[in-house]
């Protein structure tokens, strides 16, 4: 353990990153089964999916109450998990887990609960195809013992495909508007039909009917009604909170107490927070793939206020910004968008073809000074830059 702590310290001293992953990587080299041995005897909850991982993990950690070990810095691969488990030796653990690593991390940590949020196109240059992730999840989940409970989104056919052979599953009926990646059946490739009641394929694959959690009205988890009054915005966060509370039920939390703590969360790793930059209040939103971006665009109020958007294409962002054409930016017509980040010309071209007025910002000095708050959408590394550049209000 000293080696891990030492490397974390060395990493921080060398000003490289937040000092979490470097230590974990060295740790994994020293003992390949380090993650497994660190997880022994602890109650582990894993959270995976394309969108909402970080927020749902934070809501579970908050809702659980007291001391909870968690990879709050977003380092969601085994190196980050090892670092989180070394940092905090408490018996309660919730880990955000990269979709591609979920199988390995399940094997190592033998979780009590696995939360599967959703699957949609994201960084396809790294993950290639969404359906391969669903297949890998399915194989790993089918191998689970009955001691693990899978909390899964019943409205996402790819998630249901992955989870339906789990020995122990709790289905959650939560809003899932993005359907573009599940138009054809993951089981047989025929067309999936959607209507208000759910979805089904001619082959018989359909939305599960034994629902533990529902959110068409007040949130209900296993028969209990819970009054959501979240501090984080958007319908997508109501879905995240519903799944967080469903997971907390499975680790024995009192749901009304957990609800109060979940409602009190207002910012997660800087997301949704209002910060100050050069005297201007900036609301920072992390938008890194089409489904997530569209959900966040809906949180913009009516009006014609300017919007700032920053797009990079580093490894963590995905090198291919083609996904900008999958986002319905037409909803921004009537506003002016200030285009920032290394791929600002890709963004400006996309927006111009959506008939949205654009300004390309080559130098931050060009950004207007104003008393009015502004909303900034940024993808992964651009978001980190803005978090660093700005200060709390």
């Amino acid at each position, binding site marked *: 353990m000293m080696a891990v702590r030492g490397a974390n310290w060395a990493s921080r001293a060398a000003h490289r990153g937040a000092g979490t992953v470097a230590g974990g990587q060295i740790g994994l080299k020293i003992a390949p089964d380090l993650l497994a041995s660190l997880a022994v005897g602890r109650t582990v909850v894993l959270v995976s999916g394309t969108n909402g991982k970080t927020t749902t993990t934070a809501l579970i950690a908050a809702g659980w109450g007291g001391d909870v070990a968690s990879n709050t810095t977003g380092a969601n691969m085994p190196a980050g998990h090892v670092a989180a488990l070394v940092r905090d030796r408490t018996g309660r653990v919730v880990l955000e887990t990269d979709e591609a690593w979920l199988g390995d991390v399940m094997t190592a940590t033998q979780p009590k609960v696995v939360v599967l949020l959703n699957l949609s196109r994201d960084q396809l240059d790294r993950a290639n195809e969404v359906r391969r992730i669903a297949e890998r999840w399915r194989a790993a989940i089918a191998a689970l013992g009955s001691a693990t409970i899978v909390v899964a989104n019943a409205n996402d056919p790819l998630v249901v495909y992955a989870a339906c052979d789990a020995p122990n599953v709790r289905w959650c009926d939560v809003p899932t508007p993005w359907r573009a990646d599940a138009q054809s059946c993951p089981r047989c490739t025929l067309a999936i039909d959607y209507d208000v009641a759910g979805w089904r394929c001619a082959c018989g694959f359909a939305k599960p009917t034994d629902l533990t959690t529902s959110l068409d009205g007040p949130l209900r988890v296993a028969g209990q009604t819970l009054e959501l009054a979240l501090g984080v915005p958007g319908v997508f966060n109501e879905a995240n909170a519903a799944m967080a509370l469903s997971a907390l039920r499975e680790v024995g939390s009192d749901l009304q107490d957990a609800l109060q703590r979940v409602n009190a969360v207002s910012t997660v790793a800087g997301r949704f927070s209002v910060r100050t930059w050069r005297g201007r209040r900036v609301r920072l939103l992390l938008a890194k793939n089409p489904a997530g971006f569209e959900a966040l665009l809906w949180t913009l109020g009516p009006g014609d206020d300017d919007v700032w958007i920053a797009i990079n294409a580093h490894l963590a962002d995905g090198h291919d910004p*083609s996904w900008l*054409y999958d986002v319905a930016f037409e909803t921004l017509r009537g506003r002016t968008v200030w285009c920032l980040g290394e791929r600002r010309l890709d963004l400006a*071209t996309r927006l111009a*073809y959506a008939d949205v007025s654009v300004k390309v910002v080559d130098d931050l000095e060009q950004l207007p000074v104003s008393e009015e708050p502004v909303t900034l959408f940024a993808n992964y590394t651009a978001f980190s830059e803005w978090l660093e550049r700005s200060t709390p209000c």
Partner: protein
Amino acid sequence: MLTIASLLPDLLGTYGDAGNALVLASRARARGISIELLEMRRDDELPEASLYFMGGGEDGPQRLACEVLRASSLGARVRDGANVFAVCAGLQILGQHFSVEGDDEFTGLGLVDIATRRGTTRSVGDICVQVGDHLLVGFENHGGVTTLGEGVRALGDVRNGRGNDGVVDGFRAGTMWATYAHGPVLAQNPWLADELLATVLGEDVEPLSSVADLLYEERCRVLSPHSSFEVRRKDPH
């Protein structure tokens, strides 16, 4: 009135491929050409159009799209002179056969004499292709290796990336155009959008300047620093 149609965007549209029809329609309208932009979803009849767009897709949806199009009148329309612009999986579907889901061979539409097998590695990254005097810049993400039949002309020569086979990319066959540069390749290459538009219209189009020109210059600089006559002429450095 020019009618263009996106084919099965619900199945073939993984990488923002809908951008291509959007870009072509937008550049036509900017020149005062009236455009009707249609979509054929999987339960629709094939609409009558002068130009059809085909996008990329994952294995299962690609196979389904091929079945739907085989049962449609697309082949007859192409033989009657309709134009097709296809990327990635769309390119593969137009050919004799392709491989998905392991090495199972699947029969394509057979509208062009090309064949695609699964390569040993996946090709993911920026692609740069010399097409006549122009560079085509974009991004590819596919596992296919495509062989052109005798007499089928490639779209261009690969400078960067893999394209069909590491040597050439795509094809031009009759009224069909295809490239492995997926997604909004017409957005990154305004010259290609205009060449396609001019071909479909049967007449030259006026130059049109937009922010897309800056994007194209930037991508050419990044992907091929010293090779483009077009770019060198505009950039004194």
